[in-house]
């Protein structure tokens, strides 16, 4: 036995949805839940899901169904933790139960190799909220994962771009290099905090 009912009807506007069977509805519901749980599982391991992964086994969503299915997922209260982010070329999904927006943003910019944005966003944010300058060594750690050479290649290009002219450099007395945004910190302040992190904090345990 099958029943017919309307899951997306918008009768007030006269847009009648095509009636579908319960079996079909359960299928839709299942795939939404499957995707939601898949995203959560990956997020719990610290990984994003990109839209292309939904095409693959075991989800095997049809290309044309990806956007509607994600839209449906976003409407589901029990999956309100699932966040969708439209990147330059891909759609990314993650669960904010396991990954914060800031961390996801870094992962996405790293994935898309938008290194200018990755570095500048990080430096500006740290200068603004803590405030503190950012060690260049931070970009060698996860989720940035840049090699030293990669970083300095990007950094040397970044220094020549007008839109990033607020990003400045200071050194601690042990020659450790720190970056800060002069929109949010003065040079003397940035230098003194770098000195605290690198040298003075160890002398005041």
């Amino acid at each position, binding site marked *: 036995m099958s029943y017919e009912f309307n899951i997306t009807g918008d009768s007030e506007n006269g847009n009648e949805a095509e009636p579908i069977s319960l079996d079909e509805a359960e299928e839709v519901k299942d795939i939404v839940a499957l995707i939601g749980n898949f995203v959560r599982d990956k997020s719990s391991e*610290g990984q994003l899901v990109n839209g292309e992964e939904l095409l693959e086994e075991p989800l095997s969503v049809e290309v044309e169904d990806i956007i509607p299915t994600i839209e449906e997922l976003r409407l589901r209260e029990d999956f309100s933790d699932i966040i969708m982010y439209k990147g330059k070329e891909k759609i990314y999904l993650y669960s904010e139960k396991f990954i914060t927006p800031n961390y996801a943003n*870094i992962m996405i910019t790293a994935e898309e190799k938008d290194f200018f944005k990755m570095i500048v966003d990080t430096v500006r944010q740290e200068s603004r*909220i803590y405030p503190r300058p950012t060690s260049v060594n931070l970009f060698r750690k996860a*989720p940035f994962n840049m090699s030293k050479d990669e970083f300095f290649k990007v950094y040397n290009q970044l220094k020549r771009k007008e839109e990033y002219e607020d990003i400045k450099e200071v050194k601690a007395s042990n020659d450790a290099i720190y970056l800060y945004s002069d929109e949010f910190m*003065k040079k003397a302040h940035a230098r003194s905090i770098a000195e*605290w992190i690198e040298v003075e904090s160890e*002398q005041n345990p």
Partner: protein
Amino acid sequence: MAKVTGWIGNLLRVNLTTGNITVEDSMKYKDLVGGAGLGYKVIFDEVPQGTKAFDEANKVVIAVGPLTGTAAPCSGRTNITSLAPTNPYHAITDSHMGGNFGPWMKFAGYDAIIIEGAAKSPVWVRIEDDKVSIEDAGSLWGKGTVDTTKAINDIMGKEACIAAIGQAGEKQRNLASIVNSVNHSAGGHGGILGAKNLKAIGIIGKRAVHLADENAKEWLKLNEYMMSDIIGANNQHVVPNTPQPWAEYHNPGSRWTAQLGLFWGAANPPVETGECPPGDKNKVGLRTQKAIFDLGPVAEERTIKMAGCYSCPIRCQSNMYMPELEKYGLTPYATSTCINYSSPGTAMVKGYADGESKGMDAMITKCLGSRLADDYGIWSNYGQLPRDFRHMYNSGKLKEVLPKEEYDSINFDLLEKGDPGWMLEYYNNLIGDGEFSHLLDGPYWMAQRWSMGDEYWNEYSNNIWSKMAYPKHHSNEAGAQVGVLVNIMFNRDANSHTHMNFIGAGLPIGLLKEIAGEVWGSPDALDAPKDYTPMNEYKAKFAKWSIDRNFLHDSITLCNWVWPMVVSPSKSRNYRGDTALESKFFSLATGIETSEEELDYMAERICTLHRAATIKQMATIDMRNEHDTIPEWVFNVDPDMEPFTEGTVKLDRDDMQLALTMLYKEYGWDEKTGAPTRATYEKLGLKDVADELEGLNLLP
């Protein structure tokens, strides 16, 4: 009579002169909570004004509080109160040790042990529940704490906890420790046990520490709540020190070092710390991989495990596998934390042979040095001892004051080459009988003996806190005026972490200021690091609260290296902690329903009693000018910068005098002198203290 819970209700008094051993009711000190509060009252009441630390009339009070032995998180500390030989006035101080001694004391049936008098020959005290005896220690005298502990454990059994002094204590050096379980040391009172011919105390007991009736379930719920939602890592740092998916924030200075791919590498099999987000109480113990924090990345593969004190989920003590130590005649292990690792490193004034500040040579040096310091029972004076050595050596003054023969006999080549073997030379000479050993006199007496000039006292990098002669400890670099006010209050380095734990928690300044506003009345209580503003009343409230909570923790007894819980790692709580947790645990343990405000009031009483004991010993009420002095470098640092400009910790003289006035006002003390008034003593239930001080003409 109502059943006593939390506390035991007994105080053990051991008179080494007469051999009398008595048990008294400890509940007469109940309003002073225990620990430090109890110790201050005993010293105030029973030690005559003007007594010197090593005099027979001085007493040593080893005391803990109602939470010790209850399994409250981070309740393994033991407080020791006595006069301090390092202090110019031999004023009252506490020393503190972790490990097991305090809980073992409760299990044996005592809230406190008072040691008084002096034995004619070396002895040790054996405590097995209510069997207490004074034993001959002739065969132990001259041994280090390791051999002493082993010898007494052989007699009492391996489960006994042994607190001992090493050669530094025996020789009545000012910078001597009392060490329990061979690596948990309390600094500054070891020489007093030496003066009393008391080598060690061995203790074991079989009693329980009871909670108040029917509170067990509530206790477990409270414990669960704290472990899941509130507690962070060492120093109550509440964000990890690397970016992690679950964490909104990170801070490179955080002691929350746990992360994917980080191991206790010498465990078999190696244990990965992994990420340890809030909510999982079983991962709290993995959050602080302190070995890499103290010793650098090279320590990972040598870490057997993280250890620590009784009933503490924050495992801040690194157990290391160090086969390199066998070359120096030691077993291949080291166990320590924090300043006890960094202090030997500071004594390497020419750096390390491999050129790395956190390389293998540094790790060998720090492990070797910490082993020697604990075995000899040498106190680093919060790292001042090696800074004093550095000053003397680099200035050439050491060569001037040491006899030529002695100077030439010391193998400074090891130091110049950055060889870890310098540790043996350094510590062996400190514990020797030559002029070099007077580095252990501490700054005040050393400076007198060797005629140290202003360049010693006023140099910022020397860290000396005024002529009270202790080092700074989270002072103007930690919350501007707040840190300074915390540093003027004590008679040793301010072993107070309340303010620094909050400042260093790792959260953005906006969040911290919001929380500061909720706890101390205004966000203006807190400045951004190195971006200071002039003094205001909320900073005075923050300073007072920080000081009082430190006194509370040393009395109740909780670890002030983790407590209080002003913040939490819980995003769902918007990082708010729970400042009432101490009172909740206190109420459940003692059965005396006590609010946060009421417990803070008791802490204020303890602080004021400490002040009274200081005034009595210094024989002056002019605390502002004679005690609460501020070193020149607070006002002279960064000569090209003005106070209250971004990038400096420099402060202003007039502003700091205002800060003192505001702090005195918060305590209800005389605003001119900084001495408590009779009205304040009486309000706090200390009328007898006021009466005695009036008789000594020491009331304002």
